[in-house]
């Protein structure tokens, strides 16, 4: 990822539960050490449409969603926009999900629900600042 000014960071947050989506977005908006333009999508297919139109530095996706789970979404992101940093948020402590996400989507970050607000902000900050994408 090329260097961008903090205000140019763009994050796409994907979760089918509107309340969770709002909470995630609010948490990130309240970050003190970075500012980013947040876009939300409550459906993975809708997220892909948004991704077609706009470049994002980070996609933060829930695991369990209709039509396509978070790993499948992030796998597509990896294939089509490999420079985008991919983070999975999940309430399942199932190791298989984490493994699958590592193997198929080559995720950069894995965040357990319930997330800690400060820790989530730290992770996103690190992802944005580090530009950890491995190019797929």
């Amino acid at each position, binding site marked *: 990822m090329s260097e961008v000014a903090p205000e140019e960071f763009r994050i796409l947050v994907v979760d089918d539960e509107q309340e969770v989506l709002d909470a995630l977005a609010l948490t990130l908006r309240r970050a003190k050490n970075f500012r980013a333009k947040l876009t939300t999508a409550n459906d993975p297919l809708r997220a892909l449409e948004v991704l077609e139109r706009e470049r994002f530095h980070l996609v933060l996706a829930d695991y369990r969603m209709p039509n396509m789970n978070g790993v499948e979404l992030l796998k597509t992101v990896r294939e089509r926009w490999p420079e985008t940093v991919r983070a999975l948020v999940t309430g399942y402590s199932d190791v298989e999900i984490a493994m699958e996400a590592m193997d198929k989507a080559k995720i950069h*970050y*894995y*965040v357990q629900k319930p997330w800690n607000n*400060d820790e989530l902000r*730290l992770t996103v900050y690190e992802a944005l600042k580090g530009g950890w994408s491995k190019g797929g």
Partner: protein
Amino acid sequence: MALPEVVVEFERPEEPLCRFTAENPGARAMLRVTDPTPPTLSTVLTVVGDTDKTGALLRELRAQPGAASFEIVTITPYSVVCKIGASTNGNARMAWAEALDAFLETFGRDALLEPVMVEGGRMRIRAMAVRNLDTRRALEKLQELQKALPWSGFRVVRVADFDPVAMSDRLVPMLDPDQEELVRLALSMGYYESPRRCNLEDIARRVGLSVSPVHKKLKDIEHTLINGYLDPSTRKERKRRRHGVSLSRRGEGGTFREVLVHATIPGAITEFCARNRGARAVWQPLHDATGRGDSLLLVVIAPPTLYRELLKQLEAEGKTLEVLSRDEGHATVRVTGRGAGPDPIAGLVRRFGRDAYLKPAVVEGSRTLVRIVLTRRLPDDEVVKAMEEVALEAAWQDQEVVAIRDLAVEASLLSLPRLEKVTPRQDEVLRIGHALGYYRTPRGCTLEDIAGTLGISTNAVHKNLTAAEQKIIYAYVGTGL
């Protein structure tokens, strides 16, 4: 009273963590025991290294019959944190759990364990074994351990009386980052071995300088460390001047970094140590990878008349105490209850992630040396700022980040000989040489002058000084081992 500090390392090529760190240069693993009670050791494993390669390791660990529970907590591009419940029963134990369990059986489950480090294919355990053992008995127990374990390359790195104040002094860096890097390089190249495995030209070539500045820098380093050895007060002077100095060479993810913080931490433990001259305490919060936990392992080093006073006070504050061991010079206690101690772990986890944790903290007088291990990729100035916030939240006073440094130990340094003490004779020759100005620039005396003063040969002076210098430098660098 003798509380030994034990550092031991060994290897087992087929053990997954050993194999992984041996096969992947730069990869390291750290195991933190959060509950040593059988039949399941509760642990938090942090593996740093390319996460593309970590997946296979995690699958292998999870598939082992001894893995009673396995949960992935965090993944970052350079680290994975898992909670593992490792069975201590039967033949199906995981090899590392077997080794840890055997160590705890040998030295007591109340031993203050530092996180177990696995790197370069070797596993290293460091513990303040809180049972009353003299050095000889501790060595005998290590021999028993060696016989009981099917591990190879067993090496005792350190067995010494545990002295929290000396440890605190040792841990605070005396050298600046460039000096630290140079002395580590010189050590790894064998410059301080006898006979030397390299000369100044070799080192100069590696660092891209000419011989003269390298020679001067190494002399400065040697003088600083020798002065610190002979006159510990110079170390304290240096400590004060070194506020905020970073020794972190990379400041990037993919390595373990240690943040050293001095602070006055209000509470019964600090008040006790400040009030009772000579009394010391070491404490460590027992928490899992989410920062949860309301207990603290506390070692109070003081006579019973004094430590009972502290324990009574803690009980009066509503804490539940479980005395794990005690004798005429110390008590080891598990303190449980809301706000069991000066535990900033919740704040640390929030700011530095779930892979952050506290090593045993040392209380001397009113000051506490807190050591925090991080893997997150944060610039040093942000670490300092976040520590200020943690300290503010926890009501710490006069908080000072003394250093931030890499915990990485070059594989070549792992072959350092056992850390030995300077002998009385070497100490005497060193002190005379120092007093005569041998360690001043330019030198205030020659080897012949020292030999004449002591009535021994120049060769004997040279041998004693070289051996003492070598041990002091090894001891300094070996602190991180």
